[in-house]
């Protein structure tokens, strides 16, 4: 199972308290994780990436295993630890504002 952590606002929206666990078909890519997440929690559609273009929203970032994956293409494989479920795929709200 893939583990995904969400920022506070999206945890509230999805009605979850901790990391969510998702079954994701291989190949396990960033896009496949987000697809599985939005299927399991349809209220999140449009909040992480654009509904139509699937582009990441500007103030949302993706991290895993200490790396910023935000600019990786959607079809790039995620780190092996994420695919194995030992490390979470982290979705966070970027630090922004003033």
């Amino acid at each position, binding site marked *: 199972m893939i583990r995904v952590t969400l*920022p*506070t*606002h*999206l945890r509230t*929206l999805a009605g979850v308290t901790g990391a969510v666990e998702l079954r994701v078909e291989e190949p396990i890519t960033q896009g496949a994780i987000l697809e599985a997440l939005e299927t399991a929690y*349809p*209220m999140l*559609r*449009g*909040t*992480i990436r654009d*509904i*139509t273009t699937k582009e990441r*929203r500007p*103030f*949302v970032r993706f991290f895993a295993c200490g790396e910023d994956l935000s600019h990786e293409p959607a079809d790039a494989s995620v780190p092996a630890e994420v695919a194995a479920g030992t490390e979470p795929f982290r979705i966070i*709200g*970027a630090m*922004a504002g003033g």
Partner: protein
Amino acid sequence: MSEVRVLVGTRKGAFILRSDERRKDWTVEGPLFPGWEIYHITGTPSDPNRLYVSQSGGWFGQLIQRSDDGGKTWETVGNEFLYDGVPGTHQWYDGSQHPWEFKRVWHLEPSPSNPDSVYAGVEDAALFHSDDGGKTWRELPGLRDVKGNLWQPGAGGMCLHTIVLSPDDPNRMFVAISAAGAFRTDDGGATWRPVNQGLKSEFELPDATAEVGHCVHSIAMHPSRPNILFMQKHWDVMRSDNAGESWHEVSGNLPSDFGFPIAVHAHDPNTIYVVPITSDSHHFPPDGKLRVYRSRSGGEEWEALTNGLPQENCYVNVLRNALAVDSLESCGLYFGTTGGQVYVSADSGDNWMPIVHDLPAVLSVEVQVLL
């Protein structure tokens, strides 16, 4: 005894204020959707427990929430606002053309007869409709055919912020857009035409009487006189006696005719209310005095309503969706400020009291009377 429910949208969540018809003692519930911008929370006339919320934010975009139990529980419904076909372009600040881009929903207007039918006014300006309780949305693209390429965003964005449904003709409605003007449809939204004749924007437009481009801030109508409209424009308070075919100014003796909201008394269609603001560059009341102005003559002659409102050192604003009128026998008025106060008057504006002092900046105020 009736219950009064005031629905307040703020920069950081929604609040529901409740009282009985005396409107003296209030309970405050919230924040709902804490941390999110709530541009509008509104009830449905034909099912008061059906509420709709526009929930948005810079991080996570636009959501629509719906409640079927008066705000106790909420369901996230559809947030797919896709412009019809190729969206095209509108005028940008530098005069170039810029693609239409969806940003947020400013206003939700439910049908008076069908709780599943609701309109959404959005930025970049367009009108959407849902006939399934907000699950799916379809644009009414004929509106943007009305010289949409000449529309230009104002300082607050190019937003469709006002939707007025005609009570005597289900095919007629009015919308207002900053900075494009007022528009009317007589065929249920298929086709539209500008209704801006008589508006003058000397300092904002190269052609002061242009067909489109005026910065209309809000429009109000009394249901008993659907052909009479009142408008708060960027500058100027205006009136139309022929369903928008032409407008004339009724600013009269107001201390400033700049402002955002306008409202009509529930039982006297000739009594109207505005909240004058100093100017387009000074978004606060003249002289630091928060005054609602009332005209009992449909404009021109105005009186200041000050009892219970701060009359010194007050520098808040009242935004276009933040003034509401209830339907009780002694008509109640409500408004919220950018300083987070929500005020109520239970006697048509003669006397005011704050319901809450310290909410986040108020974006919208609506009121429901529950029998």
